């Protein structure tokens, strides 16, 4: 497994977390999410996002409502449920913990290198 592949696996694991975070800010529809992700390392395609959204909805993390669009089919606007917020909060805390650990270890290494 090359380094790139490992990064890919990490990104895949974090995608759900990132999507939760985006939806937490405001009600969005799928194309919005993709646009926001597009400028980051988490650039994603519909083929991945739609199955993920439906899985998250099945797990009760998010819900959607239909809104008419000016032209064409109505759109699904996603929002977090209480459970989704809870999970986001828990994940954030865990993420910070991991982050702190990584930083700590890196500092130690730097100190030893000196």
């Amino acid at each position: 497994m090359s380094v790139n592949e490992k990064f890919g696996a990490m990104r895949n694991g974090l995608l759900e977390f990132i999507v939760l975070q985006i939806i937490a800010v405001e009600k969005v529809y799928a194309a919005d999410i993709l646009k926001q992700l597009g400028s980051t390392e988490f650039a994603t395609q519909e083929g991945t996002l739609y199955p993920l959204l439906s899985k998250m909805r099945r797990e009760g993390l998010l819900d959607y409502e239909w809104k008419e669009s000016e032209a064409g089919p109505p759109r699904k606007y996603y929002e977090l449920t209480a459970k989704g917020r809870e999970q986001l909060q828990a994940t954030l805390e865990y993420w910070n913990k991991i982050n702190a650990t990584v930083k700590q270890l890196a500092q130690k290494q730097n100190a030893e290198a000196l």
Partner: protein
Amino acid sequence: MNKVITINLGGNAYQLEEGGYDALRVYLETAATRLAGNPDQEEILLDIEWAIAEKFRGLLGNHKNVVANREVSAVLAAMGPIEAEPGKAENPATSANPSGSRPSGSGSGPSGTAGTAGQGPSGSGGATPKRLYRIPENAMIAGVCNGMAAYLQIDPTLVRLAFVLLTCLWGSGLAIYVVLAMVVPEARSPEEKAAATGAPSTAQEFIRRAREGYYEAIKGFPDRRARRAWQRRFKREMRVNAYQWRSQWQHYWAEHATRHPGVWVALPLISLLQGAFTLIWICALVSLLATGDVLGVALPVNVPVWVGTLLLLILYAVVAGPIKMARRACYWSLGHMKPGWSLWFLVDGVAGLVVMVALMGLAIHYCPVLREALHNLPEICHQATADVQSWWQTQGKEALTPHK
């Protein structure tokens, strides 16, 4: 100049060039297969259709009504491949036959012979099996073939081959297997295991069979692994062959069949013909197994019963094959059906299976001849293997004598 195809995506009509339409269809079909088993399959597919529709709309304007091939390709590339379950490893649909879902069938046997399980005169090979069980030890799927082999006192490989042949040639092996896997109870307690093989212990039975050289006949391979590998390759090749052959036929019929009104008359007639032939054939088989003659006509003196049975099986394949083919042809010519799966096939298959099972149940219950035939079956199979074995041995001796 390109042909244009109008499609409906999310309630709006879009016009695509033909190549683009094909590409879109393939994309959506692939998506549907990848999402097979996902409870939200339909919803996701709809989401995807609508997302594609939005992208198409962005491409079209007042003076542009048709989405070009290359634009469709670009949109599909932007959509990306469908990932069945993001964040997880591949999970292929393996819900078919997990060993966890076994219907507990202890003591549900209606037959009256279950009482005298396995304490027969053992060792000499005369012990008759009393009940059909599934045997999970060394099983490949659910132990059906294993159990049948023990019941009929033959090598399980032969039974497996028979199922593979049934599946490849007539497509019925799989259905029978699934039904048996659900209906036949699994041998779990030592008593049940003894009753399954008809011997007091499987170890003794194994030694006896090893002594008689049952396995030698088909072995011929250096070790078990090599034999297994060969079996697997054989199965795979048979499957591929059957598939190719069938799809060739299907294409032929799909192209050449016309929507003739006579089909509506021919189809029931052919079905009736097939049913009648099958019924007569079953009667002949049962009478052969039970009494040793075919519907009153005795076999020639030096032809053993198992050879007659084999001939009957071949006869059935030869006669029923073309009838079945004709019936399929009727289905295809009923129009709007692409070769392959269709609802008609499903209805036909399920109805046929239900009728078969119902008839079998009734027959076993009310027809003593059939019971007798089933009772004779182990003995006949045993004789068949014994005959083949002795023939094999004489062949071996003849091959050896010139050298001496």
